[in-house]
């Protein structure tokens, strides 16, 4: 069964999960909810056939969770434990948000996204700039890979010299090519009518389905529980 979520649900998921990761879980109910909101996006990733990344996220999260619960306590001391604690708590705390964001970015088409933003009456300026950012991720990745290859060929690698220089060597060509591509990209987009004053139409038809409503309710409950627990105490 494939469940294609409505982009609005996805945006709401991001919102709730980001809020949840900012609040600490203090009892087992909160922990359980936190795990639920992490497992859900992983499940959706599997449904959208991103098996490898789902597995990777799952292993990372479960390991970190396991270590936090079994090995670490208030009594742990020593540098290694401190390091491990820091590392694991960052993962446990923030990975849910990362997974959700990754899932949404991978599975939302740009036109779906623009359509949603329009339905929510966002100003065009914001919509278009966010859409460009989404379009740019794969480009940055492509460019970065080529630059990394070029550095490999010249045997300039991290750890062989000045770290700041190494970063500089990566960032500067990346910036140059991104600026160039961005410039050409916007020229191409405006010759095709981007920025037109008339209302933009969309061939994407958005419809909230049953599972969308269910998810929205579920995430709302999670959010409410977290907020209540935080403020009741």
């Amino acid at each position, binding site marked *: 069964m494939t469940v294609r979520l409505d982009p609005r649900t996805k945006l709401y998921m991001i919102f709730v999960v980001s809020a949840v990761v900012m609040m600490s879980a203090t009892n087992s109910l909160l922990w359980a909810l936190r795990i639920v909101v992490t497992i859900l996006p992983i499940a959706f990733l599997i449904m959208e056939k991103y098996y490898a990344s789902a597995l990777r996220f799952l292993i990372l999260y479960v390991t970190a969770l396991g270590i936090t619960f079994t090995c670490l306590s208030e009594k742990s001391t020593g540098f290694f434990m401190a390091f491990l604690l820091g590392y694991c708590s960052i993962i446990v705390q923030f990975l849910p948000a990362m997974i959700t964001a990754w899932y949404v970015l991978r599975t939302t*088409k740009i036109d779906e996204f623009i359509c949603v933003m329009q339905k929510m009456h966002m100003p065009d300026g914001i919509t278009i700039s966010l859409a460009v950012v989404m*379009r740019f991720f794969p480009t940055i990745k492509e460019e970065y890979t080529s630059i990394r290859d070029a550095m490999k060929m*010249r*045997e300039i690698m991290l750890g062989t010299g000045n770290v700041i220089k190494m970063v500089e060597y990566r960032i500067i060509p990346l910036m140059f090519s991104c600026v160039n591509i961005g410039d050409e990209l916007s020229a191409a987009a*405006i*010759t*095709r*009518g981007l920025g037109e004053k008339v209302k933009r139409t969309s061939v994407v038809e958005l419809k909230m389905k049953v599972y969308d409503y269910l998810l929205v309710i579920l995430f709302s409950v999670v959010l409410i529980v977290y907020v209540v627990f935080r403020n009741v105490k």
Partner: protein
Amino acid sequence: MQTIIDIKDATYKYKGARNNSLMGVSMQVKKGETILLCGASGSGKTTLIRLINGLIPHYYNGELQGSICVKEKDVSKTPLYNLAGTVGTVFQNPRSQFFSVDTDGEIVFGPENIGIAPKEILKRKDNIIEQMKLNKLMGRNLFELSGGQKQRIACASVAALLPEIILLDEPSSNLDLQSISELGKITRKWKEQGKTVIISEHRLWYVKDFVDRVIYMKDGVIANEWAGERFKKLGEKEIRKLKLRPLLLNEKFSNILCFKSGQKSFKRMEETDSIILKDFYFSYKRKPYIFRKKKFTQSDGEHLNLCVQNLAIPKGKIIGVIGSNGMGKSTFLRCICGLEKDCTGVIKTDGMVYKGRARIPVSYMVMQDVNHQLFTDSVKEEVLLSMKEKDEERCYCILESLGLLEYKDTHPMALSGGQKQRVAIASAVAAGASLLLFDEPTSGLDYSHMEKVGDLLKQLAAMGKTVLVSTHDPELIERCCEYLLCVNNGKVEYV
């Protein structure tokens, strides 16, 4: 016939530029005409295209004089989005003209922008898919398509706006021969549909048969003009004099490049002194081993993207590497210079055997986009960075031999494309690489720049370097390649 584009005495200077890009250009285009713009790079072709689609003066800053009217509208007073349904443009770089990430979204992007009803858009989309035979490309990720496929989608997305005027700005620069003829067919169809088409192009062979008029630009002015029929009959000498690429594809090469017949007209391997590549196997579709990666062997057969059991490359020669896009040319080059870690091939040269990471210093690839491989803030630094022992004397020597000495303190990004290429070569020479690989060094270059690259390759060969150059450029092959390797489905053979 009605005049659809009317440019009167246009002079244009880009902001910050020293010279005018256009000087007093006037031209009229009739409805339904097909026009070819040719001339060297920097002669003002692109600027002229930008005048017509309105990017000048609305997007690029500069000083404009004169008037440009498109369909009786003054371009400088018409907002760009009002021109969108009238003028469509296919740009040079397939990588940077997409707004969507998927093919379907890209085709409907334009019509959506100008507010056409969704039903009508879908109807247009289906029409275009049928006309251009794009069925196989639908529902795909644009980042996974080849240059030729991307360019076809770009054409489709422009056509979806149903513009009366279509401009193409060097659309064939990054394409292989088959994709170029494909592009030619699309343009010809547009002409038949009665659209006004203006093509700016270096490669003349695929457009010469159907253009009505040819405009030759030089230093910002229209230097000459022919009717299409007259232009077709220009002799080789005249074309050469104009510094244009030839009108006809050299048949021998085009046959080889298109794999029409197994002509073996090039020199066969006979030299004894050679670099041997052994057991280069590689596949992108990795078999699902979670803990240990699989070593590729010949037995993987069909799954291999590269399969080279034993290949001898003559030393100190220039070897062309040809093959259609997606056949594995780039993979071949990447594996040789050690960029694909999982390819465990061995390079044997001068009685030495190089394995694994040791292969990296032996070879050096000059990438298609050289911007990716220039890191420092001056040319001198760039060359010194490649040297294990910093030796300024040697650095100057290398710069001198490549004609770069006067730029030694310039920032590499401030140089022209050709100069950047030479800086990349200088750093390769400095690193002591004996095998130099070039990934399509002449894509998008005009004839005289192509000649320069050819001469440079010869110079490198004369210095004792072995040069492998992957290319779609028959003129470059004719000019400098002594041997020709053909990559077909990962198999590499001499032709």
